[in-house]
């Protein structure tokens, strides 16, 4: 979970003011020991956290990179040593047809999920801003309920709703004369299966986007919008020329986070397919996981994970540059 930018400026160091204050009161220099303590104290405060982060994040990152250059199988797990094989894992990945299929599938999946999440989240945020007090409270509470639903729980609910025999979805769609959905198995075909998985992901992601954007919207000065409306701007123009540019920083943060989250979707697929997803359902994270933990090829799995992180950052970077360019041309 990431936090947005906090107010960085406007909080000058405590050290400086404290030193000035005590000098005024006591009018004497502090002893050397006390001053040394003062200089050292931030480092002492920081040390435990820094140590833990190095141990549980820094070292694993290094190990991941090293593993990706090693032949590291189940036997290596016992001997605790892998064999250095240079770039072999990577050349194997890039020659693997399956890799390219999975990569493409992951890109499409991410694009669809991020797009749907952002569009629907924005629409709901705009709706929230125009609702009456009661409805707004009701909808916000509803969104928070959804936000709080654990992924494992959400997957089980959706599996139950799309159950081919007694699922409420098939019954409803049939009653609404969308078609004959009786006994339709949604997961039999990867396309409809991915539709369900997308629904789970987007449903779970909308509240965060909608509530955050609504919080941002409520900070947009009402005078600006009113002035534009008096000048005859249409609702779409107000959004395009006033609200959106003002909220651009929030849009950038939310979309980047969504890309990062959706690119590594694992739980939804793993659980929706009963811990044994068919190859048609593999995304990058599933591919890497299966190679490592099901086939015991930890080195190969690590190489896939490195490629996944690289591709993810590339996607985020390309998107960010696009957004910044859009901001500049305005």
């Amino acid at each position, binding site marked *: 979970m990431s936090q947005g930018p906090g107010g960085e400026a406007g909080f000058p160091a405590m050290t400086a003011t404290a030193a000035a204050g005590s000098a005024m009161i006591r009018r004497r220099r502090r002893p050397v020991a006390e001053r040394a303590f003062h200089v050292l104290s931030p480092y002492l405060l920081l040390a*435990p956290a820094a140590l833990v982060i190095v141990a549980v994040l820094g*070292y694993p*990152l290094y190990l991941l990179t090293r593993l990706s250059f090693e032949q590291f199988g189940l036997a290596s797990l016992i001997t605790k040593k892998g064999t250095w094989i240079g770039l072999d894992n990577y050349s194997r990945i890039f020659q693997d047809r399956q890799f390219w299929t999975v990569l493409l599938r992951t890109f499409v999946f991410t694009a669809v999920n991020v797009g749907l999440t952002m569009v629907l989240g924005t629409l709901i945020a705009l709706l929230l801003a125009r609702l009456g007090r009661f409805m707004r409270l009701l909808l916000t509470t509803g969104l928070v*309920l959804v936000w709080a639903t654990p992924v494992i729980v959400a997957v089980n609910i959706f599996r139950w709703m799309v159950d081919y025999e007694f699922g409420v979805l098939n019954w409803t769609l049939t009653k609404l004369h969308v078609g004959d959905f009786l006994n339709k198995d949604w997961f039999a075909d990867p396309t409809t299966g991915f539709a369900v998985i997308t629904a789970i992901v987007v449903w779970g992601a909308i509240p965060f986007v909608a509530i955050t954007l609504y919080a941002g919207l409520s900070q947009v000065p009402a005078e600006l919008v009113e002035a534009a409306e008096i000048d005859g701007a249409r609702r779409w123009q107000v959004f395009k020329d006033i609200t959106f540019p003002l909220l651009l920083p929030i849009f950038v943060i939310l979309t980047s986070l969504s890309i990062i989250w959706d690119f590594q979707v694992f739980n939804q697929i793993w659980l929706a397919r009963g811990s044994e997803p068919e190859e048609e359902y593999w995304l990058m994270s599933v591919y890497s996981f299966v190679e490592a933990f099901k086939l015991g090829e930890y080195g190969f799995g690590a190489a896939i994970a490195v490629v996944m992180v690289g591709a993810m950052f590339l996607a985020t970077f390309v998107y960010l540059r696009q957004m910044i360019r859009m901001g500049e041309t305005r």
Partner: protein
Amino acid sequence: MSRRVAGRIGINLAGLFVFVVMVFPVYWMVATSFKEGHNILSDTPQFFPSPVTLSNFDDAIHRAFFWDVVKNSLLIVGAVVGFSIVVGFLAALALAKFRFYGRGAFIVLILGVQMVPLNALIIPLYIQLSRAGLTNELSGVIITYLTFVLPFTVWTLRGFLLGIPRELEEAAMVDGSTRFGAFVRILLPLVAPGLVATSNFAFIVAWNEFLIAYVFLNDPEKQTLTVWLAGFTTQRGTDWGPLMAAATLTALPVLVFFLLIHRKIAFGLTAGAVRG
């Protein structure tokens, strides 16, 4: 004028529609968990449970290992939250209240590590723990959870600390209080709501985690609630009633905590992002 009224009704109806669509899955879980078996497996779905029964909950909590996994989840989450809050608060103090060499670099580090996907780290973490002999141990999972809980704890607490006006502390010190005295009497009470909100959020994230617990804990009596819930499907097919009851029980603590804190989190995220 009447067009405006119509518009207003239309907007609120749209709001109601979105509410129903979004909340329905959660409602369906709760409703199913209170239904009798034959009403769950009926060709025409029953939209309101009648008669209401608690037998699904009874079934769920009497399943094998239920109390073990609840205890494990509470233990893991308690340890992770306690440790993260203490260590994270110290680091947040340093970042928010001191100016020192390397501060900027540390802030970048804290933000950067939150971008690293957990799914990519699971392989090296697993190998690291298996070398240390900590797989299939709760302590191994606790250490691993710090990977994603600690950085965000530091960041959120720093935000809360920055929100406290400097003048309050200075006033206390001018009044003859020591720096430590000012900290205990002024800063700590002011940051207490922030500490509560952050611990709640850390609780939720750790409580919901699935993948690490799933990979690292093999014995059924050592697993967490989410892993136990994921293994609910039996050979005979899925027992939807008890499963939905168990899901409701899993989600319940999170729902309660989330309703308490969501305002702080949502506004904390965007504070300062828009300057009108």
